[in-house]
């Protein structure tokens, strides 16, 4: 059965917003991580920028989950369960997302605490937090690319 044209447009907008959300979440963290990698440990850590980035990142997480559910809705009964290549890849992606969310929260808690800590502590800790979440986010992005072409 063909989907109504209106629902195709909604599905496209939801999908584009999902991609935009991931670009903001992963791109913002990657930029800050690269900046930290290029900085010396004794340089002032950009804790104020990190704090702003955390605000934006959690907004992006909300948009990603919301539009992710919308993407599932657009699949309808075409969504495959476990046992199929698509179903197993999707399960793997969701497991990684479930692992990423507590890491992101830990990163935010560290950023909140670092606002009052010494600059000497901030740089290496931020580098570790952003590096871990960027790498895990990259793996999730790879799974998403596989799912969209499977």
């Amino acid at each position, binding site marked *: 059965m063909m989907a109504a044209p209106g629902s195709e447009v909604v599905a496209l907008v939801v999908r584009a917003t999902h991609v935009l959300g991931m670009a903001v979440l992963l791109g913002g963290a990657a930029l800050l991580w690269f900046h930290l990698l290029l900085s010396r440990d004794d340089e002032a850590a950009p804790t104020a920028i990190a704090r702003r980035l955390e*605000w934006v990142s959690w*907004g992006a997480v*909300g948009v990603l989950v919301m539009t992710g*559910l919308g993407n599932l809705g657009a699949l309808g009964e*075409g969504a495959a369960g476990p046992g199929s290549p698509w179903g197993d890849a999707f*399960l793997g992606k969701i497991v990684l997302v479930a692992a990423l969310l507590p890491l992101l929260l830990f990163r935010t808690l*560290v*950023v909140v*605490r670092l606002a009052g800590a010494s600059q000497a502590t901030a740089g290496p800790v931020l580098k570790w937090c952003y590096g871990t979440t960027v790498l895990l986010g990259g793996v999730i992005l790879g799974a998403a690319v596989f799912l969209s072409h499977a």
Partner: protein
Amino acid sequence: MEPPSSSATPDPPAPDLLLVWSLAAFHAAFLMVALVLILQAFGDIQALTGSLNTAAGIALYLALWGLTGWTTYRAAADVGRVEPGFPRFGAAFLGNAIRWGGLNGFLFLTMLLVVTAIGFRIPQILLALPVAALPALIVGGLLGAAFAVIDGLLLHAAHRVVPGEGAPPGNP
């Protein structure tokens, strides 16, 4: 009207809004991801995706996110009154998580029933509210307790990585 006494106890500072924003977004997102994960691994994901209306799903997620944001703010403010400063897991933390989580469950159910009653024109569904209110309070309270444990572990880890008193609540 008497001027405020200089010896009056000052109000505790408002909770750190970034902390509230991140905790609320985490709770709403993790709950949905866990639900999808369980359905995909052990259940019937097609049952969810086949019945999911995109607009209604987005509206309900926004409602869950908003309600969770409000209850998280209130819980954080109540914890701050008892134990000012960067929050730590303890009796006040757990108690408020259960209390406000229960209220969140009840309010979300109420919103769900009202939206269903109006959207699908079945007002009689509102009769389910008195029956379902207690289970919603209990489920919300249990989820609040579960998230309090996860948050408590992550807060403890953040304390370990950045020792000391940490930053005073600062906004934004």
